[in-house]
């Protein structure tokens, strides 16, 4: 594998909440390679957005380090944002509604590439995200565009700085179902043609499978499993991954017996006072004594797979 562009190593983020602490992300390790897409999946509160924001340097990690091109990043250098861009979930809230598409894109071009031919560059960007003919879109206000078109403008703006890494935080979940695939296909094209490294954050495993190469699953602030997508989905190692896949809508579902009782699936724990040991143990039908007391270490398995589960460690 090539050198990762962007890496998180043992990253944790704790937020103070009154007298207590919210352990939003703990000990997360992730590497993004050029031309590859990693999907980060999990439920709300699992820490996936916090991790994306750590990678986008919204805030510094409490511990651990973020590395860009192998070098530890400190502070919020502008050069960092020339390489790493974040796309938000809400295309309605992330464009300045008072300015036309042209202005929204020009700002990014001028800030990061002051010598560029701005008009030409803006036109190229719109073509890149298939908002053509360009004249039809360039002078529109955000409210004159559909949700899908707006999200394309957001992606175009991210591309304006010519980044190496795109972090997409649920980039399609607010779009209508019939236009989501166009957006996924666009992201896939950017990866193939521009060699972008992409982090795709989602709660939708089926769309993760469609787009990504590797899947990383988070639960209650911790990474619990990762590996090539087809292996993880067809044969999950961690019982939580199994639960997540079993819960996803699947019209082709076979009637095999479930590991879990569908009427009592439980809910993720509070991150202020998470369970000791493995955080999934209170919901896990396979929990053993050790799971209640000691956090499972990372177990590496053949084929680039890994998990944090005592079942695999004991095997």
């Amino acid at each position: 594998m090539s050198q990762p562009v962007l890496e998180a190593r043992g990253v944790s983020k704790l937020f103070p909440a009154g007298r207590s602490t919210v352990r939003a992300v703990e000990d997360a390790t992730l590497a993004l390679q050029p031309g590859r897409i990693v999907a980060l999946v999990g439920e709300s509160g699992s820490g996936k957005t916090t991790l994306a924001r750590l990678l986008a340097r919204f805030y510094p990690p409490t511990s651990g380090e973020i590395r860009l091109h192998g070098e530890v990043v400190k502070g919020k250098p502008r050069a960092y944002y020339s390489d790493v861009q974040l796309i938000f979930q809400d295309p309605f809230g992330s464009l300045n509604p008072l300015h036309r598409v042209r202005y929204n894109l020009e700002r990014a071009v001028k800030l990061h590439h002051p010598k560029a031919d701005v008009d030409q560059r803006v036109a190229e960007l719109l073509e890149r995200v298939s908002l053509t003919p360009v004249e039809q879109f360039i002078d529109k206000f955000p409210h004159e565009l559909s949700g899908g078109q707006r999200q394309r403008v957001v992606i175009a703006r991210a591309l304006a700085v010519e980044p190496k890494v795109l972090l997409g935080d649920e980039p399609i979940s607010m779009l209508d179902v019939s236009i989501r695939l166009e957006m996924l296909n666009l992201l896939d094209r950017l990866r193939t043609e521009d060699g972008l490294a992409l982090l795709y954050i989602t709660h939708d495993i089926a769309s993760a499978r469609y787009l990504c190469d590797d899947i990383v699953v988070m639960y209650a602030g911790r990474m619990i499993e990762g590996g090539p997508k087809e292996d993880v989905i067809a044969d999950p190692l961690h019982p939580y991954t199994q639960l997540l896949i079993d819960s996803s809508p699947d019209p082709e579902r076979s009637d095999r017996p479930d590991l879990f009782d569908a009427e009592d699936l439980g809910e993720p724990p509070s991150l202020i006072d998470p369970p000791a040991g493995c955080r999934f143990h209170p919901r896990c039908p396979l929990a053993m004594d050790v799971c209640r007391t000691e956090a499972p270490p990372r177990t590496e398995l053949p084929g680039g797979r890994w998990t944090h589960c005592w079942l695999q460690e004991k095997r």
Partner: protein
Amino acid sequence: MSAVLVVEGLTVDYVTGAEPVRACDDVSFELRRGEILGVAGESGSGKSTLITALTRLQRPPAVTTAGRIEFHGTDLVALGPDDLRKLRWTSLAIVLQSAMDALNPVMRVGAQFVDVLRAHDKTLSRKDAWTRAAELLGMVGISADRVRSYPHELSGGMRQRASIALALACGPELVVMDEPTTAVDVVMQRQILAQVLRLRRELGFAVVFVTHDLSLLLELADRIAIMYGGRIVEIGTAESLYGKPRHPYTRGLRDSFPPLRSPLRKLNGIPGSPPDLRNPPPGCPFHPRCADRFDGCDEQRPELLTIEDHAVACRLYPSGEDQS
């Protein structure tokens, strides 16, 4: 099986500005006793308008301009507020998308059950009503000690389940559910669906379940209606809709969900955007995005015609004959 609900030619306009906006256009369907009818559509398809019209919760500028909603042998459209109040909760209940907004934040959860129970059964004592509230919460897997909790003390998933239990408090025959699982995570969604299916089996109510997520309806609903541009464009059993969708929009929508297990191929969704109802396209509302359109689709509006156990509004099936 007899029909619980018969909707005929229901048309709802939003009367604003110069031209009324038609959000629900000539919608007709039947719901049998104990049946789950899924209604799937994208934003602007008219599904929310349909729900507020069905439950007679619509507010101006929405106006029902035509059609009947036959429930219990009476036409709901013609009923006044007093007669409707007698039907609410005991015959017709609703579960809203966001339980956050549906439950009163300054009342204990149990007290909201007691309110509903005692309003519809004047003989019920306060003590018995609290006991019944705890039983109802138990039906959706919420322990009895939670009956004295305030909504903010429950998780989002518990609140949503509590609002389902509340809808069932007075034993309605029809429960209308408006995206009840959209605000919860996928694991909670699975749990809620499993509970709805069991409760339907035990209590025998019928459900109209509205969502933008066709993939979950395929597992939940007996029959599914697909809405587009304010109209039902196709209606049929979940199996036939998944296995043999007729309308090009239904096919496109089905193929907009990547598979979880079967081999991946490139999917394209449906190019273009849903129609703007303020300025609807002439003819078939789907024709600007339709790959199968032919001469006349932009002029003639297809009627919903029956093919076997299935109905479709598309000119590819001119006399209700299956051409494919």
